[in-house]
């Protein structure tokens, strides 16, 4: 498709030539068309988030055509019958109009809202995949930060959009926001005025949220998504461990045509599933809640799922923490701790974790092959602890529904969660770490002794032994291809002349943290160990005296196992 020499003759060729002479698109196509992407279902989770975002933009543009971001009060006349003749804001009235009179309007509203829930769910599952497989390690730490920022922006986008119809439910959500903002020492009341343009609710908040929701946040999300994807292209995608997959290569299918078809097709699948949901499942029926009025509230007053953890955190906190300090200033720790400190801790953990792990690992190399979660027990445990805390808080935010559906006392449930929020994450960490170590031991067992075949062989001396089939080299590679990090070693506190060196305390702290991470570890099997396991079995057999017939029989196993002869197995010779 070059312009020098032979001129293009086809229509497409001419068009390409025209474009290339003005954009040098040829080099970009050459660079990217056959770029390789590894294939795995979990690599599509981020795509679900991206596609939900595109669907949010498409359906959102539809909705802006009919939505009136104004709090001016009107007497509404129109469907449904339960709203006819009521006083409400333009925002609410236009939402009713969109839902009941615009063809496909309710469908678009419902797809938009479902897409918002799926957007956040996909971001969270994508982050889980990245976290548990260690994909945030060098060189991708910065992209993890971009992703975490995107998650927070997603929360804000969802919250601002949820409030736009100006209904009772979201209005009470705003009121809670106002209460939380007011609890901030020193500037709380002023911040509340800043947000609402005066006292709550005023008549500014819906237009302000509209600007935030359709311009500011989507703009930031678009910019950060572009950066996020730029990093993905720059770093090339990570890949799961397996034969032939190393930190120096990337194995998969070319962008054109396979990935164009798969990823492009997936967009339509995501859109199709969301359309299916929007068509069949009602979501956020604002006419049930009614137009905002500061007096009413309805049972089941909760935010969308991704904000439930904050709601739960507020519900769990005992009220005693509020106090009046010297000088008659009021400090509402009963609001500040659950609504500001708790999310602060959760988000800080997400932001610093990659750097923390790099520091305790003293690992400066690039990583492109993913970890199996079991091979990094403490990271996996911490991730599970984080999720446990998040889920307990979300459940606590649903305690009234748990109470009615399981016929329990809401007070009892609250107390149980107050205990669980401390015990649950710890237990989640402990049990996950144990399970990981157990799985690693199981892997070692498998590599050393092979698969159980269920075939029992009886020997002449009457002993029964199960035949084991050794792993093929692909299976084995998956289980031995990792490194068990060891805790950091630090230089002694004093140098050779007995002078105390600077920075020792810091090093010591880091070492303690490093021990927490890597004290308990299971080393992968080495070829020497495998060989030893087999010959050890032989020694045992001979030394024990009672297995003589086995050794002289058909096969030799490690310990009490019997390994089936296998031509492909490149272990030590048997017989």
């Amino acid at each position, binding site marked *: 498709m070059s312009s020098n020499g032979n001129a293009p003759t086809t229509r497409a060729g001419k068009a390409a030539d025209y474009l290339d002479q003005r954009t040098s698109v040829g080099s970009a196509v050459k660079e990217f068309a056959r770029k*390789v992407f590894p294939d795995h279902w979990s690599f599509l989770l981020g795509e679900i988030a991206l596609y939900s975002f595109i669907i949010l933009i498409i359906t959102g543009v539809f909705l802006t055509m009919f939505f009136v971001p104004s709090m001016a*009060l009107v007497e509404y006349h129109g*469907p*449904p019958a339960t709203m006819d003749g009521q*006083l409400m804001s333009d925002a609410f009235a236009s939402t009713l109009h969109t839902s009941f*009179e615009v*063809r*496909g309007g309710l*469908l678009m509203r*419902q*797809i938009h809202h479902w897409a918002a829930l799926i957007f956040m769910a996909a971001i969270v599952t994508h982050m889980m995949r990245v976290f548990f497989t260690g994909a945030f390690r060098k060189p991708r730490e910065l992209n993890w930060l971009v992703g975490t920022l995107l998650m927070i922006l997603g929360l804000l986008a969802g919250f601002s959009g949820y409030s736009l119809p100006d209904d009772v439910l979201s209005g009470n959500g705003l*009121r*809670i926001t*106002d*209460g939380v903002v007011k*609890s*901030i020492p020193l500037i709380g009341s002023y911040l509340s*005025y800043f947000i609402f343009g*005066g006292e709550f609710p*005023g008549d500014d908040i819906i237009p302000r949220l509209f600007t935030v929701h359709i311009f500011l946040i989507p703009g930031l999300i678009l910019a950060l998504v572009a950066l996020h994807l730029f990093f993905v292209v720059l770093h090339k995608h990570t890949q799961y461990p397996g*034969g*032939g997959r*190393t930190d*120096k290569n*990337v*194995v998969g299918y*070319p962008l054109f*045509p396979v990935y164009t078809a798969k990823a492009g*097709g997936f967009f339509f*699948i995501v*859109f*199709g*599933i969301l*359309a299916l949901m929007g*068509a*069949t499942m009602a979501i956020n029926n604002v006419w049930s809640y009614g137009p*905002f*009025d*500061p007096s009413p*509230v*309805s049972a089941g007053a909760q935010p969308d799922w991704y904000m439930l953890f904050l*709601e739960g955190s507020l519900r*769990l906190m*005992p*009220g005693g923490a*509020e106090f009046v300090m010297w000088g008659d*200033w009021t400090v509402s720790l*009963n*609001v500040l701790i659950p609504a500001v400190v708790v999310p602060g801790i959760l988000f800080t953990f997400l932001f610093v974790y990659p750097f923390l792990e790099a520091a305790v690992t003293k690992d400066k190399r690039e990583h492109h*092959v993913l970890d199996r979660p079991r091979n990094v027990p403490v990271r996996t445990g911490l991730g599970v602890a984080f999720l446990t805390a998040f889920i307990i808080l979300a459940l606590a935010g649903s*305690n*009234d529904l748990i109470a009615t559906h399981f016929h329990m006392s809401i007070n009892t449930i609250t107390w149980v969660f107050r205990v669980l929020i401390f015990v649950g994450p710890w237990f989640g960490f402990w049990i996950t770490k144990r399970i990981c170590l157990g799985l690693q031991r199981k892997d070692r067992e498998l590599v050393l002794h092979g698969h159980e075949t269920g075939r029992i062989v009886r020997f002449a001396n009457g002993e029964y032994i199960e035949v084991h089939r050794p792993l093929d080299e*692909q299976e084995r590679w998956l289980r*031995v291809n990792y490194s068990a990090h060891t805790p950091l070693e630090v230089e002694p506190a004093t140098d050779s002349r007995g002078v105390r060196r600077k920075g020792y305390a810091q090093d010591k702290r880091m070492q303690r943290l490093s021990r927490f991470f890597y004290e308990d570890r299971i080393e*992968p099997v*080495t*070829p*020497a*160990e495998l060989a*030893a396991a087999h010959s050890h079995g032989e020694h045992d057999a001979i030394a024990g005296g009672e297995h003589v017939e086995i050794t002289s029989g058909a096969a030799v196993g490690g310990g009490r196992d019997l390994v089936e002869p296998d031509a492909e197995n490149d272990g030590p010779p048997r017989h």
Partner: protein
Amino acid sequence: MSDYKNPRSPESSHREVGHREEHGTLERFPDPGMPEHQSRMSDRDPKAAKRAERQVVLLFMVSILGTIASLIFYFAFRPDGTTAGVRTSTLSLGLAMAFALLGIGLGAVHWAKALMSDHEKVDERHAIASDAETRQGAIAELTAGADDANIGRRGVLKGAMISALALFPLTIAVPLVSSVGGDWNVSKLKHTMWEPGTRLAIDPSGRPIKAADVTIGSVVHIIPDVEAAERETHEWITEKSKAIVLLVRLDPRDLKADQSPAGETWSYDGIVAFSKVCTHVGCPVALYEQQTHHLLCPCHQSTFDVADGAKVVFGPAKRPLPQLPITVDDEGYLVAQSDFHEPIGPSFWERLK
């Protein structure tokens, strides 16, 4: 980009600390290389390939039919404003749209999976960091530029530029901040529109209420009695947010505390009025349990004991709900004695100032 080459090389190892070699074997297992390629049904059997092709075509046809159905449904089901009508319209348009989309999506993916080459390819990776030469080049360029501008030697200039850049946002921020918070008069948070003699009216109808109308065990949601026209303004909604009150009549013998700090009576014959705005984060506290006299907030389950001055008995709130002092006027209507004696709603820093 060649097809797969076996990277059976020792540097592919992840390993930091290796084991000492024992028994003369390798320190670690070698990478076995790519697993053998498994051919697909459609590669082995031309009939299967043909069948897959027909399936893809069929899926794209489903999509086209979905779009056509969507257009038909658009004309067939006019949303008439009834629940059932809107539901039919939403369901038919949505299902047709889902078919139109899923047909394309499933078709494209099936095409990719069954008919496009499934031979994996290998790209080399290169270190992300630029090499030493490039870096030196970059530094040289920067130094040259800095030398051109003589930044290093013109300290005052540098300071002036940074100051100018740091200051100019004020030209936008000052006008914005001056107006963005309305009048910034936060002392309004401490007062409501209740005044001595304001009648208590029923929300939402606005009818004033007499003491005789309230029976024991009943609860009434109360707003200040104002003109109907005034209740259709935004100022009203903002005022109402602070002024909403819950009125409850108890058996006077059940009332444990209803005396003001100064000793006046704030209740009338077992009728008590408390602010409906939660002292936690401001939700309307409205779930009154007649038998226990407990008032529960549906948002975070703070529970207040109406019989005992609305003190907190459970949940995240700390302070009791402020009480509205009430009495009756000559005609027997319930009226406020005064505004609340403390700021209503959630705590804020200068609440007691």
